[in-house]
């Protein structure tokens, strides 16, 4: 089959062999420290063919130095991360979201706070790619999820120069900075309306990617009640702990609810909107509580001031995710406050036409 000849603009580097390429890439700070798939012209062309994009297709503009981020460079880094061509639509959609002005990509990627970009995938594309929102969903759940999340990190490293000690000033960072991607479990247990459809509307055949500047996941456990309110009280307690121990400022939080707990919400007739409104009403602390966690010196005369975790109920992303057994849950706090908003982008939509 004849293939269209594409004129890739990237500099071509001649090396001895793939092993030489590994060392060459590591030595230049082009990796996350793990081995990469050498980005050959053939692999990058195959990825661009899959999405039907010319190499110079503009995906977005990096906001600080006004860098044009192109499909070719995104594809090069996706290949390095281990992505197959069929993974590229998700990677490109995630990058589109990261470059939306509401995401304010510079802050969460440069800050000492050390957040990662959580990437949530919804819709039929999850199943096409074999993305699994159940067992080990925040670990190495499956190939596509691992590689797509890793691709976003390599793109930050190589296209945004977000390297440790360079633009990335993270004090700690967290393991999600290697890869922080999950597919929502839209089928298992008692299904809820998927996040993408909640945030964008549309039909069930639409796929979407949501990006959120996120700290590491905090696991909770409550297997000793079937009451949705009591279950959520445990989530709320973890959110309050984060507000006191880390940052008191409101922002976008995500919670993961596994099917064992979702059954209880389903039986009681609770939708995601019900969950959001319950958490919104209860997730607040008073400034005086800082004194309980060693921060009394900054309470001042504002001890009665009330701080909410969520400025709006919709700032809570409620996710169906996790293995079938276990009365656990996850709270994923925001990077720091509201400066970076969660952005949801449909897969395959034209953003400039």
């Amino acid at each position, binding site marked *: 089959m004849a293939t269209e000849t594409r004129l*890739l*603009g*990237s*500099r*071509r*580097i*001649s*090396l*001895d*062999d*793939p092993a*030489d*390429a590994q060392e*060459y*890439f590591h030595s230049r700070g*082009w990796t996350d420290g793990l081995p990469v798939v*050498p*980005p*050959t*012209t053939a692999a*990058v062309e195959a990825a661009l063919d899959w999405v039907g994009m010319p190499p110079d297709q503009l995906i977005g503009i990096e*906001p*600080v*130095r*006004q*860098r*044009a*981020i192109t499909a070719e*460079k995104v594809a*090069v*880094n996706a290949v*390095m991360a281990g992505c197959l061509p069929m993974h590229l639509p998700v990677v490109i959609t995630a990058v589109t979201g990261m470059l939306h002005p509401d995401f*304010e990509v*510079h*802050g*969460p990627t*440069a*800050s*000492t706070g050390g957040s990662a970009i959580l990437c949530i995938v919804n819709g039929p594309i999850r199943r096409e790619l074999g993305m699994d929102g159940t067992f080990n969903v925040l670990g190495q759940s499956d190939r596509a999820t691992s590689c797509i999340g890793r691709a976003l990190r*390599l793109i930050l490293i*190589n*296209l*945004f*120069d977000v390297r440790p000690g360079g633009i990335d000033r993270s004090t700690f960072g967290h393991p999600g900075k290697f890869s922080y991607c999950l597919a929502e479990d839209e089928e298992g247990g008692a299904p809820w309306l998927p996040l993408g459809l909640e945030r964008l509307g549309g039909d069930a055949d639409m796929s979407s990617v949501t990006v959120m500047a996120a700290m590491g996941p905090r696991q909770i456990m409550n297997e000793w009640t079937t009451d949705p309110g009591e279950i959520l009280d445990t989530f709320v307690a973890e959110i309050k702990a984060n507000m006191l121990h880390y940052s008191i400022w409101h922002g976008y939080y995500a919670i993961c609810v596994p099917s064992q707990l979702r059954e209880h919400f389903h039986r009681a007739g609770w939708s995601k909107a019900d969950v959001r409104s319950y958490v919104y009403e209860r997730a607040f602390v008073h400034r005086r509580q800082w004194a309980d966690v060693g921060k009394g010196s900054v309470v001042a005369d504002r001890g009665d001031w009330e701080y909410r975790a969520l400025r709006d109920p919709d700032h809570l992303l409620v996710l169906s995710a996790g293995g079938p057994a276990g009365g656990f849950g996850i709270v994923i706090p925001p990077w720091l406050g509201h*400066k*970076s908003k969660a952005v949801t982008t449909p897969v395959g939509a034209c953003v400039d036409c």
Partner: protein
Amino acid sequence: MTFEVLDPTHETEAAALTRAPRLASLQGATVGFISNGKQGVREFLDALERELRDRHGVAEVVRTVKTNYSAPADPEIIDRAREWNALVAAVGD
């Protein structure tokens, strides 16, 4: 035999990002400060302003503060910068 791979980095900077000509002197100059708005930057800029006025004869210091420390400077600040001879973009924490 060689093995050919592609450079994964950003290779082309926007042409507009070139350094402005250096000033021969700060005597009588107007210097703008762009603060990122965090608490820690104020003391630094106070000290810098004293240095610039007392030791380098700077005539005027114009202080501006970004509305969002994570975002590029607001367009209004960039507009005002055209009236300055030099500027200091300061990041405090």
